[in-house]
């Protein structure tokens, strides 16, 4: 069954090879290869899902080994794929979202000079991401892991002429690489102990090899977590993601919202066998998630750049997923991954439409009243925003977030404190989301769309000004169908995708958890379960409270915010939040500056001084000796006499 599984990751990779190998293709062909390869991949992924789910009998994982990657006697990781419900879910969501984003990109990037390069990188990304999720062993997973990191770097720095973009790209790669190094060490540790990196055999052996809570299990889980926090932009390695918004908006939607940044969540869910043996690390995961979601939500509240708001929101939402993973509710985390992939990529794409419509203006306070001018964008953005804010009962985001909140109370590993964090986070989420909605779409139009575009915008995006290969098309006052169709499709999914898993008191649908239950353990439940309805009502109230608060602050009494910002302590807090809690400053002072200083100070390599000194002393000796060689007989005779006297004196005296 599914002999052609390998084609799914191979198609986008082939697209990459074609786009890199064949230069100077006309744009329609580039679009055809770029979008077509991902589209075909998505279609095959859906077909695989249908086949896999309709197969009779119990769900069995499918394994397809293409070849042995490193055929050694004591180590033989394969280039092999493993399809089970978890990787299937990831695969379908990744290809599905990626296809719509690729389609959108044909419009968004239509007049960019680097059209072919863009689709080449995007295809490579999809291929690498599919390798990551389908890998049957950790080494191949690591290949995908680094591959998506590379694409993230390439695409953040896509508009490379601006050094700021380059800096952001380097920061993203280097910071995540710190986490990757931890993950690599984790791989070393796991191989050392299990003699294999095959994920299934590790999962099978782990409970027999390690006692629950043993030091090595904790070390292994902590190292995997190190990789996960790097890739998923969680504390303490979250600093790269807001800067990563320097990339084109479809990139932010695909890589820095829907797929790559959730790779850490996937890794932890995938390696749950290790984490189940290291419960203290699980606690750390939950705390990291809770703290990250709060810190990032506060920061999102104070940003003025529409993409940075969404970036902090992504960090915060992944915090929810980590919270769920930490309390053992793996399915809930994957559920939120799925709904988040839909609504956050939708929000980014809609934001991209706004940015394009506003001629590359990203400051929300320079927008306003856009709902009249961009009704479709408004409606779809609103669907995403409602889902993000978790509007009770009608949005997908509500069901997944509500499940997480419920599990933090119901799981033995959860606690009311963690739940409270999640709840406060829910209020903040609704608040920052609808701050965005009210400021951007309502109120007076603060700035008319202009033909020229802002200086930064043209440098970044503008048609024609950036080594465009064809003349500047008319400004996109209306947006092509390739951009609107993805918005509509994703908006539908942002609302209805929650239907795959409903709370018991609403309707008995547990498709997702039943399905994932084959591979992911359920969280151990407390004896006295909290009332489902109560938790739901509180969660719903929290999100409504946030929306209402946003309405009061940014619609009804906008002066209140202005007054608030004048108050002294609040002003400082505001600045702290806006700067992402000072992590950047801290790392710059603690790590970057000392390293650069040290490296620069030693540029000439102090070890070479030693050899230089040998050379110099040889020269000195040479000078002294040659100084004595005067060629005058009298001088030699005098030296002879003095030497003889010295020698005789020494002989006599001793």
């Amino acid at each position, binding site marked *: 069954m599914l002999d052609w599984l390998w084609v799914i990751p191979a198609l986008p990779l082939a697209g990459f090879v074609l786009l890199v190998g064949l230069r100077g293709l006309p744009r329609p062909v580039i679009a055809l290869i770029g979008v077509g390869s991902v589209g075909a991949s998505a279609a095959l992924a859906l077909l695989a899902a249908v086949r896999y789910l309709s197969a009779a009998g119990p769900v069995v994982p499918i394994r397809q080994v293409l070849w042995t*990657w490193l*055929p050694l006697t004591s180590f033989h990781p394969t280039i092999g794929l493993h399809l089970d419900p978890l990787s299937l879910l990831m695969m379908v969501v990744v290809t599905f979202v990626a296809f719509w984003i690729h389609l959108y990109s044909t419009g968004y990037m239509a007049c960019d000079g680097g059209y072919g390069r863009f689709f080449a990188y995007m295809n490579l990304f999809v291929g690498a991401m599919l390798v990551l999720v389908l890998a049957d062993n950790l080494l191949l997973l690591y*290949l995908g892991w680094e*591959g998506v990191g590379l694409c993230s770097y390439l695409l953040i720095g896509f508009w490379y002429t601006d*050094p700021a973009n*380059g800096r952001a790209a380097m920061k993203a790669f*280097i910071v995540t690489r710190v986490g990757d190094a931890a993950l690599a060490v984790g791989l*070393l540790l796991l191989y*050392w102990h299990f003699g294999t990196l095959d994920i299934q055999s590790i999962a099978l052996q782990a409970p027999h090899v390690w006692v629950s809570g043993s030091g090595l299990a904790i070390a292994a889980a902590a190292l995997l977590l190190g990789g996960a926090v790097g890739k998923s932009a969680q504390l303490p390695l979250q600093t790269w993601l807001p800067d990563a918004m320097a990339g084109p908006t479809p990139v932010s939607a695909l890589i820095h919202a829907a797929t790559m940044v959730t790779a850490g969540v996937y890794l932890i869910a995938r390696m749950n066998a290790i984490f189940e043996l290291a419960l203290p690390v699980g606690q750390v995961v939950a705390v990291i998630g809770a703290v990250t979601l709060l810190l990032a939500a506060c920061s999102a509240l104070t940003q003025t750049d529409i993409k940075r708001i969404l970036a902090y929101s992504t960090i915060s939402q992944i915090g929810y997923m980590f919270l769920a993973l930490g309390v053992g509710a793996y399915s809930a985390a994957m559920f939120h991954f799925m709904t988040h992939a839909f609504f956050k990529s939708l929000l980014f794409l809609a934001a991209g439409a706004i940015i394009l419509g506003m001629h590359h203006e990203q400051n929300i306070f320079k927008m306003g009243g856009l709902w009249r001018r961009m009704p479709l964008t408004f409606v779809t953005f609103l669907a995403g925003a409602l889902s993000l804010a978790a509007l009770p009962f009608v949005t997908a985001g509500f069901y997944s977030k509500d499940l997480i909140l419920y599990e933090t109370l119901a799981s033995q590993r959860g606690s009311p404190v963690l739940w409270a964090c999640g709840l406060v986070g829910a209020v903040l989420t609704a608040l920052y989301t609808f701050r965005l909605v009210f400021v951007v779409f309502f109120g007076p139009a603060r700035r008319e769309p202009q033909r020229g575009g802002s200086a930064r915008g043209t440098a970044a995006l503008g048609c024609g000004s950036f080594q465009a290969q064809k003349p500047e098309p008319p400004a996109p006052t209306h947006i092509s169908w390739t951009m609107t169709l993805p918005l509509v499709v994703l908006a539908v999914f942002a609302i209805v995708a929650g239907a795959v898993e409903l709370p018991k008191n609403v309707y008995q649908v547990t498709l997702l958890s039943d399905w994932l239950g084959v591979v992911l353990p359920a969280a151990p439940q407390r004896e006295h379960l909290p009332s489902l309805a109560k938790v739901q009502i509180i969660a719903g109230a929290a999100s409504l409270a946030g929306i209402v608060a946003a309405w009061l602050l940014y619609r009804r009494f906008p002066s209140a915010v202005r007054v608030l910002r004048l108050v002294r302590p609040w002003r400082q807090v505001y600045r702290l939040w806006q700067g992402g809690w000072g992590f950047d400053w801290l790392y710059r002072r603690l790590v970057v500056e000392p390293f650069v200083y040290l490296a620069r100070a030693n540029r000439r390599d102090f070890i070479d001084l030693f050899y230089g000194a040998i050379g110099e002393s040889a020269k000195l000796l040479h000078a002294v000796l040659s100084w004595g060689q005067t060629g005058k007989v009298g001088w030699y005779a005098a030296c002879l006499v003095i030497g003889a006297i010295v020698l005789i004196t020494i002989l006599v005296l001793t």
Partner: protein
Amino acid sequence: MIPEALILVPLLTGLACLLAKASPRAVRTLAMQGTLATLALAVLLWLVHMKWLAIDPLTARSLLELNLPWIPALGVSLHLAPNGLSVLMVLLTALLGVLSVAVSWRGITQRVGFFHFNLLLILAGILGVFQAMDLFAFYFFWEVMLVPMYFLIDVWGHENRHYAAIKFFLFTQVSGLLMLLAILALYFLHGRSSGAYTFDVARLVDTPLPSPVAFGLLLGFFAAFAVKLPAVPLHTWLADAHTEAPTAGSVILAGLMLKTGAYGMLQFLWLLFPLAALDFAPAARVLGVVGILYGAMLSFAQFDLKRLVAYTSVSHMGFVLLGIFTPNELAWQGAVMQMLCHGLGTGGLFILVGYLSDRLHTRDMRAMGGLWASCPRMGGAAMFLAMAALGLPGMGSFVGEILILIGVFHVSPVLAIVASGGLVLATVYALWMMQQVFHGREKVRAADLRRTELGVLAVLIVLLIYLGVYPKNVFDTFNSTIKHSRTFNSLMQQSQIEDP
């Protein structure tokens, strides 16, 4: 038959280049034909070694081995007997030989005949080093590499070439003498104990040595190899020599000459002094890790692009040193893979830097920036090579590094963890290089790569990717050496017992 042909072909082509009163173009063509023939012979050597040896050992062995008495009175013979490790190194040498001639096509315009004579003489010397199984012959070839390389740097190098050439010569010569002393000591010790005076490695292996003596001799060999490798703190000749050499010289220095050090360690140290090597291994591993981190840090600090690339060698060869002194299958296979990929990857980077500085007439990165706009092909190739340098999975260098790390982790988890810091530092210098040269504001423009230039780099990139996803052939080739290595098997058994 093949081994001596591998040495004679470049040697005779080199002489022909020197003596023929031909036009530069004819000389270049001749050199290219000679190196291509060498490459064909190398591939043949590999095929015979891998395929024929299994089918018809007797004939194959006669093709693969040469044992001529040279100075019978002293027990010196010209014994060439390439094993799996040698075969891999010979292939790398022959390939980089072809590319060296190709990259010198436009860059070298003065004394073309003498240049190619030196180039081919170095190749002949290196091919001898990689195949000799007689220590006298080994030392002979070791010295043969040296003088033409000195000329290559001193005559065709950049601004500071005289200083760099002398420094290179002194470092390698002094350390080479230490090796010569060790070889002679071993020769006399063996002769005195067995009565037969010989330089043949296969027979010297059984010399009974008191452990302090063995340790001393090991250090003599190690000094020569560590200078070539180079191991910190003996690395300081490298940056000057690599930077000042002409492009072909840098390619051969980084791609091949450094490998002779690693090859010597892997081929001879463990074979001749297994116990002493085991005692020495922890110290050598520490040197390796220091090299990884220190080299990466030096690399990041440079303004001179070529110097930056030169220092990456210190870092990468630190991995090799670490792997060589970790006697288990994974680390050794990793070390060999890392040697090959460093040869391809760093060779490629030097070629790229050569193309770039030919166009810009500077190597100062502060004067570069935004080159991607005018040279997208060069930028793309540089990106691939930078990713190979930082050990991106999918590239052969990742296979090398991860196998070394896994192997080392068995022996010393702490060192493996510290060494993995090199993964981060490599990212820093590789991305820094890309940022300074190809990204950012467009400060300079240059002509993009020509078709042949792109072809040269494409060969290297394709090979790096091939080794990264399908390294089986390399493993099999080296495995044939490991399996037949008595030392290795006994070491294996020991480390099996140590396993938890």
